[in-house]
């Protein structure tokens, strides 16, 4: 009987260091989420107050409003666009990192990780400067003779995609790289030995074995872009704002908490839906050793 008590206690005590974190997450994450769900079923009153009734009005309004449906669609496409740009270029970078050695590898590491050492907003303002009509790129184009007037590359979809691309790239590269390092180089030796050219060996061996990394990295990229907030705000016009930005506006500017909360929940819902679809679609893809 004594032994039993000892065992249970021993196990429980390992949870103690986690308690502060659990409390933090409950108070600052879980509870606000629950509150948001509750708000989304409420009715907006003046000055940001909420009438706590149960109504589906917010959701109905959202899905019948062509404006917001457009925003939702844009958010979907934005995710796809960023993915399309990130997947191949990130693969090249991850592959180069994988094949490099010694000093070259260290330099590549630093280049890839460097953006993560600076604050996102600061970086985005950096792009603001780079892409503006008074910025260095525009100057360069004029100097070389590609254009004869200042070029403004900001406040359009490409600028937003570019910003998100630079944001997601490091994570995609690192995820893919970690999967690539799991591939035993022996397999490529075998492929060559059996008659495969370098390209064939890549297509038949390296690519399939790296697929789990590509998928994991792409999903992260998609989710990040779909729910992006800072980049569309800083590099885009209202036309390019994603749903997340609109949710913030609803709550903080327009002070329609229920409507904004509903948008937030809709973002959450679609993010979870995407992750679910990924897990079903790619469940056959395992990480092999």
């Amino acid at each position, binding site marked *: 009987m004594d032994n039993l008590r000892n065992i249970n206690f021993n196990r429980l005590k390992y949870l103690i260091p986690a308690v502060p974190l659990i409390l933090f997450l409950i108070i600052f994450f879980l509870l606000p989420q629950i509150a948001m769900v509750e708000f989304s079923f409420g009715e907006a009153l003046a000055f940001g107050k909420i009438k706590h009734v149960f109504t589906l009005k917010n959701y109905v309004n959202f899905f019948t409003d062509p404006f917001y449906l457009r925003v939702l669609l844009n958010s979907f496409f934005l995710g796809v666009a960023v993915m399309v740009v990130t997947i191949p270029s990130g693969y090249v970078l991850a592959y180069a990192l994988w094949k490099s050695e010694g000093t070259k590898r260290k330099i590549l590491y630093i280049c890839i990780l460097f953006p993560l050492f600076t604050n996102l907003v600061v970086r985005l303002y950096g792009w603001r400067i780079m892409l503006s009509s008074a910025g260095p790129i525009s100057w360069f184009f004029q100097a070389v003779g590609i254009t004869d007037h200042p070029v403004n590359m900001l406040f359009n979809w490409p600028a937003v995609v570019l910003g998100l691309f630079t944001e997601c790239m490091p994570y995609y590269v690192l995820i893919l790289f970690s999967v690539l390092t799991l591939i*035993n180089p022996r397999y490529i030796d075998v492929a060559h030995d059996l008659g495969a050219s370098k390209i064939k060996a890549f297509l038949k061996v390296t690519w399939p074995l790296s697929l789990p990394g590509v998928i994991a990295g792409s999903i992260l990229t998609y989710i990040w872009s779909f729910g992006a907030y800072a980049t569309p705000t800083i590099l885009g016009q209202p036309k390019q704002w994603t749903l997340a930005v609109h949710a913030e506006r609803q709550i903080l500017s327009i002070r329609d908490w229920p409507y904004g909360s509903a948008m937030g929940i809709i973002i959450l819902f679609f993010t979870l839906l995407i992750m679910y679809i990924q897990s079903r679609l790619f469940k056959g893809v395992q990480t092999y050793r």
Partner: protein
Amino acid sequence: MNNIAVNSKNLIKKFGEVIALNNVNLEVETGDFYFLLGPSGCGKTTLLKIIGGLETPTEGSIIIAGKDMTWVPANKRNTAMIFQEWALFPHMNVYDNIAFGLRMKKVSSVEIKKKVEELLILLRMSGYESRMPFELSGGQQQRIAMARALAIEPDVLLLDEPLSNLDLKLRQQMRVELVKLHKEIGKTFIYVTHDQTEALSMATKIAVMNMGEIEQVGTPKEIYESPVNDYVAKFIGDANELHGIIYKKDSKIIFETESGLRFQVGIENQEALNSNKVICIIRPEHIKILLESDSKPTNYFQGTIDDFSYFGKQIRLRVKIDESDDILFMDIFSTEMDEIRHGKPVTVGFDSIHTIMF
């Protein structure tokens, strides 16, 4: 028709400052079961990889079936390699693994099906087509690796310690199977190992390697009975090693160890007579425990049992010779001696013709 399947000319391989292969001249005849035998780091795997095309030499050339293949990439050579860890493609099933090389050659799927089935029958793995590598045991993976290599019908099959990852019983079984397979398909096999038992029992020719050089090439019998130097003598089989000097006395050649033990030896090269440092090798199977009634060999001494190791069928005795500090070890059958204990006095002896001198 070329009789030589593979040969290398003055092959040198350096990794930075380290010399992995130092002027290797290899000659493998077609149909040989040729073994590269040596300890870790002697260069045998590097040599194999150079033959297969996965490494390029620093200097020298590799000629396969009469053609200079030194700079031909691995995928254009007609060699196939089997690695120690077999390395079956983990994301493909057995059928696709075996078919891989054939698909690279753009063989028709009808042909491929036929070939894969043939090979599975040959290696006694029929019915395993749709299994994945992780579902197979070590021995099964090994056989599929063989099938995959044989599918492309290579001129030379290169095996890099393929049995090292198997347990003893399975290894012994696979050795027999490999020898059978070699006889059946008649291709040239080049096999790398550090296990001399494997080499002795399977090879038609052995090249004993040491630090990037080939010390001796010969049949297992030649290598074992007539080693050219003490390295080969010690690497193959067991050896009692005694250091000392030799001199002539009454038309006999006497060897005297550093601690004063003297016995008669037979030597083939008279040169050794003039050198001061001589090594005498005596194989344990040539030393016998002598009973009262036995006829005495050329040399015999009184000694005491210093230590013994039990190996089931045999017991290895270490006997300290009474008149000096030397210890000789020998093997006896467990049934030979009734009582074995530390300190028991025994008489041991060996013939002078069984001494190998360097």
